[in-house]
Structure formats: C-alpha cells, structure tokens
C-alpha cells in the first residue's frame, strides 16, 4: 500500500466533497481509499500497490479531470430541511457492527454482500408491516418484480449515461460446447475473481436491478395508463456497485428496498408524495428515531453529475430521510421521497387520458440501512427499544 497527496486545481466546495470523494474510487482499480482534506484543497489517495512516476502523473490527471468536471460552475444547492429531529434523545451511542459480526447476526459473504440473522430479520419484518400499512393507505397494489432487469429497457431511460459506475451485469457462458466444457474443467476462483476468459461470456442482455420502481414503469410502457393514475408497492433486491466505498450495512452492493410508487398527473404524484411523508413522520416519531428530511440528489456519475444534480435540487425532486449515527456523529440516508416529473412517462411513452406523458414518483426505504441506523440509536437489546417495537416484536 502506498499513499500520495495531490493538490486540486480549485478548492472543492464543502457541499460537493462527499460526492466527489465517492467518485474517486472509480478513477483507477489501484485506488483503495481516498480522502479530501478539510479545506478541500488536496486529496490523499491510498493505492493498493506502488506505481512509477508516469503512472502517478496519469492518475493525477484523471483525478483532476473528475474534480474539474464535478465542480466547475457548480451552482450552490438550495438546502431545504423539511423535518429536523436529529436531536431526539436516543439511548445508544456505540457502533453496533462489531457485536453484530461477533454474534453472527451479520455475516460477511463478500465485500458488500451480507447475510442477516434473526434479530435484524425480525426488525426489518416490523418495519415491513408498517410499510405495508402505509401502502394500504394509498390503496397501493402489491407487485412482485424480478431481480434481473432488461439492459434494453435500462438503456431506454438513459440509465447507462447517468449511473455507469454502479451497474452490476448479469451474464452466462456462451452457448458453445467447447467454452462450457473448458469452463467446467478449469474454472476456479483466484485472488480477485474467477479465472475464466472474458470471451467465454455472453453479451449483456440483463443486469441486476438497481431500483424497484423501474420495473413498474417498464410494465406500463407504450400504452395509456389505465384510469390515469396508479399506486403500487413492491419490495426487491437492488444492486449498486460501490467499489471501495462499500462499507458494511451502510453501503451494500446487494440490498433490499421497499417502494411505494405513484404514476399519474403531476398533482397526483406530488400530493401523494407529501401525504406519504407526513405518514412516515408520524411513524418515525412513534419509534423515536433521530433523523432529518432534507433535499438531496442521486449519485450521478462524473459527466452527468453537475447538471443532473443541479436540476434535481432546483426542482425539489428528491428528499432523503437521514438517520443519525450517534457513534460517528454522522447521518445515513435510510429512505427517500422522489419525483421524476414526466421523465419516465416521456421516455417510456406512458400516457395519461389527455395524451400527455404520465408523471411518476416513489417513496423508498433501504431496509437494511433503516434497521442498522435503528440499532445504532437503540442498541441490540430489544428490552431497550421503544414500546411500539417491543410490542410488535412479541405481537
């Protein structure tokens, strides 16, 4: 491992530091960690193996281009805090992860891939019971969606341009007897992956799904929306590759998301998004969670980041529920309220009775993150949990 400090061409503004830092992991496979200095004027890179001077100069050039692309002309965001309960008193302040790992409640299968034991599974079950009640308030119809998602359909909604860095591809061996026999005979896992030649694998037709609601929009594509409005709910596994940013239950490669999805006119979607926020606020108060709801943006990749993030912010398209993590004096996004305007309606040709494209929005909860944030605030002993959760656990 080697460390190198680079100055950046222009100070990275405070509001962009975490977003720029997250992207640095994708600059080179040799990067194992990156940190932006407190004044935003330099970047400390940790490399897995030492590199020579020309390689270092090339790395620096790529680093600089990321910083310039993401910060040049960036419009300072309008930070809107809709709810602030971060100072709500909570009884626990330690990091629960060492104990969760030690007692087998969380098992690491691979970076970003974790299994959960009975305590977390039951806790998520309690949250799920509430989310299904919330969905019923909106008469949201239950849906089941596949884990795989069509590459053709994702391309149609420009997903590859916006989030190329976090894609997870599904492939299979090519239909070729020699290739399959050769794989069967020689395949083994080496230091960083399977040793099979890349040419053995098929072209990509499907990916592991990065979100739940896309499947509903794809199912509604190229036809009029029946009745002009729709509410639906589904839970599903989502996959977002986060490179060296993967970090236990805070940032998983494979996680579960519950969504309540609205499709219809702009008023229908926005009114329901707001109604959902008020319902969720009541629930989070009942369980005593310390959190805030504030404006946010999606983690667009470098080339799209500046414009897309500014657009989301300007039009108040995304708000995150950020729960406090007392042990590190930080917050973690555990849910979000999203409005996509008519983006999916236009790209997928979902039309309203008046012929205009449908608007869409969703309310989404990261189930493992919510459970983890809860344990960070209340600990692993259910006896210390707020009464509604203690009762639900026994009920």
């Amino acid at each position, binding site marked *: 491992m080697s460390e190198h400090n680079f100055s950046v061409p222009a100070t990275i503004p405070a509001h962009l530091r975490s977003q720029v830092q997250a992207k640095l992991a994708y600059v080179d496979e040799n990067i194992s960690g990156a940190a932006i200095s407190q004044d935003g004027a330099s970047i400390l890179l940790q490399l897995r193996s030492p590199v020579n001077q020309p390689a270092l100069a090339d790395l620096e050039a790529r680093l600089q281009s990321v910083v310039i692309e993401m910060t040049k002309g960036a*419009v300072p965001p309008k930070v809107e805090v809709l709810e602030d309960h971060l100072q709500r008193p909570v009884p626990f302040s330690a990091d629960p992860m060492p104990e969760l790992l030690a007692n087998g409640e969380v098992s690491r299968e691979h970076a970003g891939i974790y299994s959960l034991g009975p305590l977390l599974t039951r806790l998520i079950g309690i949250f799920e019971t509430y989310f299904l009640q919330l969905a019923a308030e909106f008469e949201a119809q239950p849906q089941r969606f596949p884990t795989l998602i069509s590459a053709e359909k994702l391309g149609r909604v420009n997903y590859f341009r916006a989030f190329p860095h976090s894609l997870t591809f599904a492939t299979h061996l090519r239909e070729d007897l020699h290739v399959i026999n050769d794989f069967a005979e020689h395949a083994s896992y080496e230091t960083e992956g399977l040793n099979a030649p890349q040419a053995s694998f098929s072209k990509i037709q499907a990916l592991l799904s990065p979100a739940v609601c896309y499947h509903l929009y794809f199912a509604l594509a190229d036809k009029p929306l029946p009745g002009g409005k729709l509410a639906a709910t589904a839970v599903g596994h989502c996959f977002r590759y986060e490179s060296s940013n993967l970090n236990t239950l805070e940032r998983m490669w494979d996680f579960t998301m519950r969504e309540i999805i609205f499709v219809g006119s702009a008023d229908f979607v926005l009114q329901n998004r707001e109604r959902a926020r008020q319902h969720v606020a009541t629930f989070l108060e009942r369980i005593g969670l310390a959190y805030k709801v504030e404006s946010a943006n999606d983690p667009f990749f470098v080339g799209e980041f500046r414009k897309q993030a500014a657009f989301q912010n300007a039009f108040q398209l995304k708000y995150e529920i950020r729960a406090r993590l007392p042990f590190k004096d930080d917050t973690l996004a555990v849910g979000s309220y999203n409005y996509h305007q008519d*983006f999916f309606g236009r790209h997928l040709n979902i039309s309203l009775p008046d012929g205009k494209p449908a608007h869409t929005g969703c309310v989404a909860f990261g189930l493992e993150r919510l459970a983890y944030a809860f344990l960070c605030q209340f600990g692993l002993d259910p006896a210390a949990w707020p009464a509604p959760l203690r009762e639900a656990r026994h009920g």
Partner: protein
Amino acid sequence: MNESALLEDLRSLMAEIFRVAPDQIGPEAQLGELPQWDSMAHMDLMVALESRFGIEISAETISQLTSFPSIHAHIKNRSHV
C-alpha cells in the same frame, strides 16, 4: 439590444441548445412540452444564458425559468442588453 432583437437572440440560443430549427421555439415554448427541452438541455440552457447575457442564475431561479416568456422576462430585467 431592442425587444425584437432580444427575442430573436433568445430563440436562436435555445434552438442551438435544443438542436432544433428556431421556428420550433414557439412564443409559449416550455420545459417538457418540447421533447428536446429535458433536464440536461435545461441545465445547458441555464449555463448558456449566464454566459451569453453575463448574469448569474441561482438554484431557486433555475426552477422558475421553465418557459420562453419567463426566460425572456428574466433576461430583460437582469441583464444590460
């Protein structure tokens, strides 16, 4: 710059950003109504307006400048054209 020259200048700038003929930018053109005027094109337009007319557009204003008339009125009030 007189009123009609400003209107023509704006129309031509928007046509260039959206890659359409100037006559496709109608007097009531709006974000979302014109297929080429999507989120990315909107942000390109905001940057181009700043550069062309020497103004700064805040996050609050970005969400208000969503039609040809609103952009025209904003430029008229804020720039020295």
